[in-house]
């Protein structure tokens, strides 16, 4: 187990380094610089700014400088928000994005469990067909459209929730549903198909023949063996939550990392772009590692060597 974790960790570090390099290169070959204004700054000011942020150095030197800072956990200064470092900004925005992501994941699980169970248990019934239909609908609805619909109906027409002003629990309802809907649909679809397969296994028939209660058969025998396929998609699912949070933060004006990334891209705020990309990648790598380790807990047949 120890060796497995170590190997995966080094693999994760390699991925992060690849992400850092790729982002760095892409950023710098993109036309436009961080201090391009409509009214051009005087050349002396430009030169000073470039010198201050080492932008006058050759690219490889800038890259090494960045990596050196990264080793010490220093993500550099923000070009846009003077007096604030990227680490500062991320420290204040990551909890917001994280909370949104966790709420959405919770929503997805709470919705998909009963839906998937119902559909699988009453396979080929009208309930099954409805769940399938709803799931396809949920996967097909882009979250900016769903968010727009929710705002239009619940905020503008009914006035139940305020759109925007992240903070109070009420303000989190609509963003959570918006972000969680597609993962909920995806999960219930997956749960349904794996459960249907599991319920057809011999040991389920045996369990029933023994006279076990249906609830025991369903929750103890069937559910337990349907968990692994769901764990497998957790990685991509988290990625979907991450990318989805960009849009949801944008729509609901939530002060999270995704919104900062969007403005950083338009402003060419290099350290900010790097910082957010790296944090998101680290989250993904960490989540995938956690999922792999959970495998060995839920399924003893998986060896982690």
């Amino acid at each position, binding site marked *: 187990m120890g060796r497995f974790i170590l190997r995966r960790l080094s693999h994760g570090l390699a*991925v992060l380094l690849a992400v850092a390099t*790729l982002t760095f290169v*892409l950023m710098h070959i993109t036309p436009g610089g961080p201090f391009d204004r409509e009214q051009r700054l005087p050349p002396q000011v430009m030169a000073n700014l470039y010198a201050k942020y080492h932008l006058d150095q050759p690219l490889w030197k800038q890259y090494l400088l960045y990596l050196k800072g990264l080793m010490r956990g220093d993500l550099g200064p923000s070009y846009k928000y003077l007096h604030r470092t990227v680490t500062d900004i991320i420290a204040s925005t990551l909890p917001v994005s994280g909370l949104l992501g966790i709420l959405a994941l919770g929503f997805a699980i709470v919705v998909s469990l009963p839906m998937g169970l119902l559909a699988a248990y009453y396979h080929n019934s009208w309930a099954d067909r409805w769940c399938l239909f709803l799931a396809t*609908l949920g996967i097909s609805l882009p979250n900016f459209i769903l968010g*727009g619909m929710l705002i239009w109906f619940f905020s503008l027409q009914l006035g139940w929730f305020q759109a925007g002003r992240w903070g109070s629990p009420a303000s989190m309802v609509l963003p959570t549903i918006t972000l969680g809907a597609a993962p909920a649909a995806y999960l219930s679809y997956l749960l349904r198909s794996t459960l249907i397969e599991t319920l057809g296994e011999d040991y389920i028939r045996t369990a029933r023949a023994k006279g076990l209660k249906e609830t025991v058969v369903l929750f103890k025998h069937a559910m337990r063996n349907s968990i692994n396929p769901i764990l497998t998609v957790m990685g991509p699912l988290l990625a979907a939550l991450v*990318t989805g949070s960009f849009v949801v933060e944008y729509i609901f004006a939530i002060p999270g990392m995704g919104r900062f990334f969007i403005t950083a*891209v338009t402003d060419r705020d290099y350290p900010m772009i790097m910082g957010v990309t790296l944090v998101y990648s680290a989250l993904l790598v960490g989540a995938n590692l956690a999922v792999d380790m959970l495998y060995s807990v839920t399924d003893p047949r998986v060896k982690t060597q």
Partner: protein
Amino acid sequence: MVAKKRFEELWQRLRQNQVALWSLAFIVLVVLSSSLVSLLSPYSPGGLDEAHILERPSLSHWMGTDGLGRDLLTRILYGARVSLTVGVGTTLLALVIGTAYGLLSGYARPRVDNFLMRIVDIFYSLPDLLVFILLSLVLGRNVIGLLVSLAIVTWVRFARITRGEVLHIKESVYVEGARAIGASHARIILRHILPNIMGPILVTLTFMIPGVILAESTLSFIGLGINDPYGNWGTSWGTLAQDGWRAMRTYPHVIFFPAMAIFLTILSFNFLGNTLRDASDPKDRMK
């Protein structure tokens, strides 16, 4: 011959499914009307018509007009060309790269295969929307730039699926037979392996097109995608939705129709994909 028979079988399955048929019909309708838009619509997608700003749907403007008085239906059909071109084009490009890569990786020696798959793993652990945004900045925020950047992000899906199938089929008796009578590697790959993995690839293809359309429209919606208000190829459905977003409070129709276009198209592709997947799943076919 086998492939032809399988497509006939697929078509049979499709015909039995009402929802899939309607989906197919809708996609065909969108494709046809958007390619013929300059003949069908009396309006131009650009320009300014001060007399008809933000009109609600009427007989002369079926979906109303936008903030510059342009006919919304016409704009949506021009947008359809952009969104569909990006969706289908990206998928085809990703298909070619990914399938070739997957065939190579699955067919090669385990050591080469391992190395090639490590690269795929790295692509898989990237936060794809972020990479996509950065790539599109470099390659240009137009149809071609977005198409290529999306393909760079998505080809790994085809690579993974193809490779998995190849590993499986490589061991089958008929491939061994072909090798025994001295068929070349190229012949084995192209004649014996490729035709037999078309099913899963087709299913992936059908699901990827709506995924790409979604990604492109999302990006255009947040203002980082296609936006060239003066060109005929500069407005996608996402751009239109972004336009409508600002006027949503007072003129909901400006966002309603582009949103519906995106939603119904993605939905149709997904319904179609579901049917194809069920049809190509051997477990299901036996019933």
